[in-house]
């Protein structure tokens, strides 16, 4: 019907202006349904009043990158038909204990408003939010159509909250609580899924500490025929995994439990056959406490793997090499640095389609590691090796203890398409270990060569020169993380002046002061947020910023510091909701 209407209009109206003016809203809304990306939708809403209205009526998913940038009432007023909400809360440095607990980002006020505005809400995807058991219970009872709950790096809830979700969400398809800090009161929450419940498609409780009731899990897996994603915690044994696989060969993503010696395992052949029956695996993770004798059982499923997460597995280089020989289609690989440079050479020779590599340190706080060839972990040569074998590499997170400017230059020469480059040289302020020079040239070569760079994390000994390079060349940079770097205000100024697409800037322990902070006056309203801790900011400087830019929230975190002038932790973000009404006593809004 609507399509016919459009055709009539096209033939009738001759002039372009008339055609647009009489374009019916319903048609526009139908077309806009196909516009999914929230950035595109923002652009659509700015065209004209009609398009703004059509967009807001047709939007079903809202993405809120900072929960304090807008109020739930404002969201409900503007978008009447939301089914899915993505909400992010605390600043990212909360993950590293730089933000005190009880800082905020409570989900509950959002639930209360949305329970009446969106009774048919189906999805919540939350990151770094505080979620209590009361909130989970309220959620479970308030939204009868609720389908998907994803809690990444959230905290404040216990397994009791999960029990509420299991009990009341009859249409649940996804429950994902990865990386969240959960109070473990035991594993009986899983038994709360009623016997009639069969809709589950994704279940991830990999980081839960306590054992779950395995019988309940097995029965759940058996009756949920659409289950595609299953990631269990380390208490699930090999034999139990075997039994689960027998019930669910249709899985596409598996996170195993403990992959070590299990007396109850019937036989290795049984394990292998259980894995062989699963023809659709594309993702494998878990693998805690792996005994290499059982690794060959995985080989049958490796052929189609695109994502392998070995970041909880202390594999040696030879074990990794043998495993990777079976994974030619791998695109994403996460490993521990126990595999060392030799392991990375195996990556380079087996995984030519690799796009993303993350190397985590097995022993991040080991102060005794001596470098100069005798150290453990990975070095610059592993990094170079991967770049030589994997030309499609565009995402890297690399923890190491030594690096050289020349090696980084070689890496980006081999892989010029980096979009995410996160290099963490774990010894603070460490120079190029061969030349003793700062690491400025390394990051210089990254920004000069990788024109698509969106995210950058720097480390090592860095002067203002590194930031001059970033400001001059990183024109697509959106997120920058800086620690223990720079020589003066000029460093930060270069970045604020030179990176037009910058959205998130997080800085710790750098010699940037008020002049640097204030040089970004014009920038902060086009950014999501700025975090600065242990820099040279004072209360005066922050107050000046707050006074000049009333649409920014300038918050100082004061944790009983004796020095009243110093602004130890500063968080600046744009907001249309005004200052926080729920700030704890240690958060001062200026």
């Amino acid at each position, binding site marked *: 019907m609507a399509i016919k209407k459009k055709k009539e209009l096209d033939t009738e109206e001759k002039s372009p202006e008339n055609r647009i003016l009489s374009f019916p809203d319903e048609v526009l809304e139908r077309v806009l349904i196909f516009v999914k990306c929230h950035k595109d939708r923002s652009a659509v809403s700015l065209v004209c009043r009609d398009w703004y209205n059509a967009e807001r009526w047709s939007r079903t998913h809202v993405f809120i990158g900072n929960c304090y940038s807008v109020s739930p009432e404002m969201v409900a007023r503007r978008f009447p038909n939301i089914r899915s909400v993505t909400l992010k809360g605390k600043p990212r*440095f909360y*993950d590293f204990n730089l933000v005190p607990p009880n800082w905020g980002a409570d989900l509950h006020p959002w639930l209360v408003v949305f329970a009446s505005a969106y009774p048919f809400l189906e999805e919540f995807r939350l990151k770094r939010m505080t979620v209590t058991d009361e909130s989970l219970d309220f959620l479970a009872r308030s939204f009868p159509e609720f389908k998907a709950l994803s809690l990444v790096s959230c905290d404040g809830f216990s397994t009791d909250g999960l029990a509420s979700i299991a009990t009341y969400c009859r249409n649940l398809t996804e429950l994902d609580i990865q990386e969240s800090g959960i109070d473990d009161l035991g594993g009986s929450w899983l038994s709360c899924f009623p016997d009639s419940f069969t809709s589950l498609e994704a279940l991830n409780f990999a980081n839960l500490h306590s054992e779950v009731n395995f019988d309940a899990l097995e029965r759940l897996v058996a009756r949920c025929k659409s289950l595609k994603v299953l990631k269990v915690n380390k208490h699930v044994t090999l034999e139990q995994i075997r039994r689960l696989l027998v019930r669910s060969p249709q899985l596409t993503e598996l996170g195993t439990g403990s992959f070590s010696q299990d007396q109850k395992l019937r036989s290795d052949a049984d394990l292998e056959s259980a894995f062989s029956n699963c023809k659709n695996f594309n993702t494998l993770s878990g693998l805690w406490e792996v005994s290499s004798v059982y690794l060959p059982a995985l080989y049958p499923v490796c052929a189609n793997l695109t994502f392998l997460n070995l970041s909880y597995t202390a594999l040696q280089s030879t074990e990794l090499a043998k495993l990777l020989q079976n994974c030619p289609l791998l695109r994403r690989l996460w490993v521990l640095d126990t595999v060392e440079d030799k392991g990375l050479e195996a990556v380079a020779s087996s995984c030519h389609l690799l796009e993303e590599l993350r190397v985590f340190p097995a022993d991040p706080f080991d102060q005794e590691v001596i470098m100069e060839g005798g150290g453990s972990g990975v070095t610059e040569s592993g990094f170079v090796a991967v770049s030589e074998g994997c030309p499609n590499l565009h995402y890297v997170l690399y923890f190491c203890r030594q690096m050289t400017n020349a090696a980084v230059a070689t890496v980006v020469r081999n892989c010029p398409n980096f979009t995410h480059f996160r290099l963490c040289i774990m010894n603070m*302020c460490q120079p190029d270990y061969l030349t003793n*020079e700062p690491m400025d040239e390394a990051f210089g070569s990254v920004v000069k060569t990788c024109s698509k760079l969106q995210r950058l994390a720097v480390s090592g000994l860095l002067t203002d020169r590194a930031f001059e390079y970033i400001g001059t060349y990183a024109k697509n940079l959106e997120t920058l993380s800086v*620690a*223990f770097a720079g020589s003066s205000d000029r460093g930060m100024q270069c970045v604020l002046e030179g990176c037009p697409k910058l959205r998130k800037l997080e800085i710790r322990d750098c*010699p940037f002061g008020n002049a640097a902070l204030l040089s970004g006056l014009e920038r902060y309203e086009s950014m999501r947020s700025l975090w600065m801790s242990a820099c040279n900011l*004072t209360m005066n400087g922050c107050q*000046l910023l707050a006074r000049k830019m009333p649409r920014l929230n300038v918050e100082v975190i004061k944790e009983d510091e004796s020095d009243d002038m110093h602004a*130890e932790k500063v968080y600046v973000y744009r907001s249309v909701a005004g200052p926080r009404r729920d700030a704890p006593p240690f958060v001062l809004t200026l």
Partner: protein
Amino acid sequence: MEGGGSDGSDLDNLKATELKLGLPGTGEQEKLPSILPRSSKRAILEANEGPSKRNSSEIKSVERDQKPAAKAQIVGWPPIQSYRKNSYQAMKMEAEPTGMYVKVSMDGVPYLRKIDLKVYKGYEELREALEDMFKCFSLGEISRMNESNGYEYAITYEDKDGDWMLVGDVPWEMFISSCKRMRIMKGDEARGLGSTP
């Protein structure tokens, strides 16, 4: 940033009241990054005192001199999330030599197994586990610990002194602390071990 005069004077006023670490009159020099965290609560790695310029090699040599002193941890560095840190710590503890892995060989079997003695509560559990592990190979029951008469196989172990002993004679705790490896021996060979001198 607007170039208006009022902004400039605001900034100058700020600078005048600023508290700095360096000596007076040294504000404008290009300094290498200060690694002295301002908060007194956090661990101090290396005092970067005074305005004197240091080049990177000097810093490195100072670091080397200070290496014997244990470096205290800095909050949130390296930047690894807590759930990951906790996993790694757990992994470290499990990998430590306090886990008692010993090799177990069985006569006539082409490969060995490795077991963690700490997992078992006593001899009975150990025997059951070994029977389970090798059941496809054993043609008869593995003997009870203290008797080797009439059974096909006997479980023996090499102790700290290098001697081969019959499993089951000593208290369990003593056994697991002295056992270096185990061998499931064919019955006739084992009979020699079990007989009391």
